[in-house]
């Protein structure tokens, strides 16, 4: 009996010290800070850190300060899984924010879902992120961005409507989940809207010669060339396309948005349109205010990833405020209850799959930078 009492006392003591240690609320951030989509990771981290710092300056959540742990995944799924396990199992974070590419977010989603820790995804657009392969909804995973079926449909609508394109050529990365997914969604929507897709070709990771596919696209003389991939590879593709004399209007997805794009692609990218989450010159007061705030801290205008990182972090902070114990399960419930949250990239509500429903921005690469064209819904 006495021994049982001692055990109970020890447990109470341990629990007590546990409480005192959690003066801060631990939050993990996983982002590609090196590798081929490095600018995405840096922007996302900057945007998210800004939101967390502002929350701490305003007194934290429920009287406790946020402690943010940032991990690099180098845009490699294995590294993302490693970072996710460390954050969830060793650091026992309350929630995780990340990552950028679908390839890296999928292992994170598995780990967080299994541990019941909420994952807020700033920018991975593949539908599989919030829905497991068996069709079950991952109830702990939420995202602050639209999905690829959504943006693929918008890109197709824009190509058929504003660009008046009858035929489209699609060239995608067959080794990448995001690229494959978006290519398919665009093709389906473009064909459904009465267009034709005579060229639906791919290349694999590690392949650097796209001339054969591009030459095929050139002789087919499609009205638009849709390139759903990340900026560094798109830059190489468009350079080779222009060298071959392919002058088709270029079209792409949110993977195009990077300050590195004009540097790596040069003049080849000029005139290209892409669907995006945000544009710094969109005429909305919230956007203006955000652009100024970001500029004064980091010295450059925010791109879509910075904005999404910021919105995702705000979503999380707001949910944490509605979860007084800051227990992961509680935060999941609070996140799911989010409705009409006013983010910079638009009002966010979650649909039944945990995906944000909002407008898509269409932007264009011009000689003076990225310019806002219009906003669309499918």
């Amino acid at each position, binding site marked *: 009996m006495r021994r049982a009492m001692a055990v109970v006392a020890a447990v109470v003591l341990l629990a007590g010290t546990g409480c005192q240690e959690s003066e801060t609320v631990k939050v993990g951030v996983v982002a590609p800070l090196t590798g081929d989509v490095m600018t995405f990771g840096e922007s996302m981290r900057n945007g998210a850190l800004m939101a967390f710092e502002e929350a701490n300056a305003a007194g934290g959540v429920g009287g406790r300060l946020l402690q943010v742990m940032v991990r690099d995944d180098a845009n490699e799924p294995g590294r993302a899984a490693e970072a996710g396990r460390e954050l969830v199992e060793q650091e026992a974070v309350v929630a995780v924010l990340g990552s950028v590419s679908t390839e890296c977010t999928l292992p994170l989603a598995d780990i967080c879902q299994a541990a019941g820790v909420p994952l807020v995804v700033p920018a991975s657009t593949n539908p599989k992120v919030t829905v497991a392969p068996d069709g079950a909804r991952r109830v702990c995973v939420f995202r602050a961005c639209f999905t690829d079926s959504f943006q693929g449909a918008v890109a197709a609508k824009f190509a058929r409507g504003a660009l008046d394109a009858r035929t489209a050529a699609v060239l995608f990365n067959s080794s990448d989940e995001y690229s494959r997914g978006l290519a398919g969604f665009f093709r389906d929507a473009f064909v459904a809207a009465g267009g034709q897709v005579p060229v639906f070709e791919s290349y694999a990771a*590690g392949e650097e010669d796209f001339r054969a596919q591009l030459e095929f696209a050139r002789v087919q003389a499609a009205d638009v060339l849709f390139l759903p991939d990340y900026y560094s590879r798109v830059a190489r593709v468009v350079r080779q396309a222009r060298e071959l004399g392919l002058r088709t209007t270029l079209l792409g997805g949110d993977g195009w948005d990077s300050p590195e794009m004009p540097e790596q692609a040069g003049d080849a990218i000029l005139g290209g349109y892409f669907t995006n989450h945000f544009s710094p010159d969109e005429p909305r007061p919230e956007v203006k205010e955000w652009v100024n705030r970001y500029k004064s801290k980091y010295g450059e205008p925010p791109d879509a990833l910075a904005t999404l990182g910021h919105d995702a972090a705000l979503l999380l902070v707001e949910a944490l405020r509605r979860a007084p114990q800051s227990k992961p399960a509680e935060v999941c419930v609070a996140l799911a209850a989010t409705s009409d949250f006013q983010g910079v990239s638009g009002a966010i509500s979650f649909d039944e799959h945990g995906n944000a429903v909002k407008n898509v921005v269409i932007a264009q690469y011009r000689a003076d930078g990225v310019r806002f064209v219009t906003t669309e819904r499918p």
Partner: protein
Amino acid sequence: MTYFLQQLINGLQLGFVYALIALGYTMVYGIVRLINFAHGDVFMVGAYLGFFALASWGLPFPLAIVVAMVGCAALGVFIERVAYKPLRNAPRISALITAMGVSLFIENFTNLNFVFGPTPRAFPRPFAVRTFGLGGVEITNVQLIVFGVAILLMVGLSLFVGRTRTGRAMRAVSQDRDTARLMGINVDTVISITFGIGSALAGAGGVLYGIAYPQIQPMMGIMPGLKAFVAAVLGGIGIIPGAMLGSLIMGVVETFTSAYVSSTLRDAVAFGILILVLLVRPTGLLGKSHSDKV
């Protein structure tokens, strides 16, 4: 017809780059019967040396190729001395596994932030890209340079192996190492020279690859390395003209698969060739079948 010719040029460009890598594979195999899997990574290091020569040291383009070739030759000899020489009399499988280890080491070591880092770098073009029209077919100055340098190096290699004393020593060692040693040939030196020359060619290939596909990163050598290996097997591993022929065929077949069949089948066809060659003609296109010495 124009389409065919245009795709042929695209295929040859790829083929010539493969050829510069495949030559190193085949030379080393011919002499020490080792598939040097680190060869694709030497090619990557060559691309980086060319990058530093052009971007950081501001050297002219021909000198950048020389820097890459000399640097890679040194690296190749170093790898041979440290990793393969101690295993010269070990079973061949040990050397093969070591080669894979060296390959993984180079990839991951150069991937570290204080070496080359995982972030891809844009390879500088020392000249503007110009396109020439030839009867409806377009060819760029980059392609002409790739063709020119590759042909020059291959002719140089053929002359070296066929006409010089060292070349004769190399051929002798490849035919029979022990007899060559009895004839007074310093086998170790010949092997080192072979690694040096093979690696130098890969280094030049790296720079040419850099100007043709201007972005480099530490894992860039894996796929071209594998494809060049297939090309060397296709032409007959150990046979120098076979590596050239095999590489050009590989480049053109890959391009034509994309052009006329489907780009998703490109790699399937490339590696399908390897399987087919091994089944039907294991000695390769130019190989002569001979029974191994017992």
